[in-house]
């Protein structure tokens, strides 16, 4: 079964700025992998319901208490660009 892949759309969804040649190469490889992966469709029988956790855990809750967070300066020191306690990003909206 040939698998249909709109590779440019997938790359856009994944925010990967790839060139046309790279996209074609990945498309071919994904085709081979997905053809193998499509074997999952051979599973038959009753609907199988997956356990969320092998030890049967569901949600974990804790008390809603104040506690220290990571140090802001130490965190921002890892940012590529930071200014006055903020991360710096390109403008998200047009400014008149």
């Amino acid at each position, binding site marked *: 079964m040939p698998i249909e892949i709109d590779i440019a759309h997938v790359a856009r969804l994944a925010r*990967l700025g*790839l060139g046309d040649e790279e996209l074609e190469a990945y498309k071919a490889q*994904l085709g081979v992998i997905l053809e193998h992966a499509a074997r999952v469709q051979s599973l038959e029988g009753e609907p199988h*319901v997956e356990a969320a956790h092998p030890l049967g855990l569901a949600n*974990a809750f804790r008390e809603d208490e104040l506690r220290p967070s990571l140090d802001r300066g130490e965190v921002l020191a890892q940012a*590529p660009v930071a200014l006055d306690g903020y*991360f710096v990003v390109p403008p998200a909206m047009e400014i008149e």
Partner: protein
Amino acid sequence: MIATSLAEAARLLRSGETSAVDLLSEALATASRTEAQLHAFLTIDTDGAMVAAGQADADLADGIDRGPLHGIPVALKDNMCTRGVETTAGSQILAGYIPPYDATVVTRLRSGGAVVMGKTNLDEFAMGSSTENSAYGPTYNPWDLSRVPGGSSGGSAAAVAAGSSLLAFGSDTGGSIRQPSSLCGVVGMKPTYGTVSRYGLIAFASSLDQIGPISRTVEDSALALETTWGHDPLDSTSYPGDYPDPKAGLERGVEGLRIGVVTELSGEGFEPSVEAATTDMVARLEKEGVEVREVSLPTFEIALSAYYLIAPAEASSNLARFDGIRYGLRVDGATTEELMARTRAEGFGPEVTRRILLGTYSLSAGYYDAFYGQAQRVRAAIQEDFARAYEQVDVLVSPTSPTVAFEAGARTADPLAMYLSDICNIPANLAGHPAISVPIAVDDAGLPIGFQVMAPPLGEELMYQVAAEVERQAAFALSPPAVGAVQ
């Protein structure tokens, strides 16, 4: 080498025959002799480790004994956050990243007196089976420098095999502890999902990732697990109940146990030497009084397919955080979207890019149910197959890897061939069960062969009981020739 195991080093430390500083100096000397050939480490923190070793010695002198790992040099796969020490996950996108916190496993190691000596090489974001996907260059196998150490925890396995570290930790999402341990002739163990905290482990596929030890002996593995597992409120999937004692069965033997040999993990694709060594070990265990049964788990045939939908799907979501804004690499763009797309295209290597695309595809509108949804149903069916098998037998066994270590470069052009390296390991990840690899033999070329023991969830005591007998029966000598006999 001062000590050939962690347990022996612990005894020598307490009898005053060695010190933590001596153990560390020996490890660093071995590393400096072998690293040019192996490239097992990305970072060696000599200064930090010396301070920790000095403190461990001072504590012991003051009568403070922090447990079996006290004063033991430990290497960590470079996807575990270490405060103040660069953590890259083997990726360019995290080059220079200095975590502002320790992973829980690191905190536990430090409070257990262990000496963190460095960070080991890995396939980028733990995606790979040969450590050739590291952005910082590959690691080589201490048994044969033309071959891969396996992966993704190849640096950790190579470091332990070469004697550069008595103990290392890896992470196992689809075999990434067990397969390199098998290829490097050391013991590697993936615990039950939820028993070792994932807090501070750079996420690959959160429903599959588990941290576990790589060691020279089965006993060392149990001691390392005991120190690092346990409930952690910082990981919402962490198990809050009672934990077994992994050491309890080490000397018990295996008489009366029922062992299942997995039919699906043999035959096509398995090297004859691997099959022969596995069969031989099963026969030895039978002589020790186990009841051997052939067990069929039909869904294992499609486990790899399910894994290569589920793991990339989770990876595509987890790796969305690498956006060039909060940490790591940034390639500028006119808009935030352009900045992200450029940063990610430049920062991620080919295998990571491939898996992000694969995961994004299988989660995208129109394909979700046929791929991701169906893979989740297969995962459930695998869990059901395991449950049926464990009604008949106590543990399941198989080869750890269908082949011994392969030549560097042999599988880099064929992603699917590389993925097949983990075919024996993936079912335990999909089910969340514990599994261990124990070295049992070498093939005609002198390359190690590993034997896998799988157990039900929280079955670590039983798993180690069987693994210890496998180790006794194998009497395997850890002596990788490429770096000189280390024992």
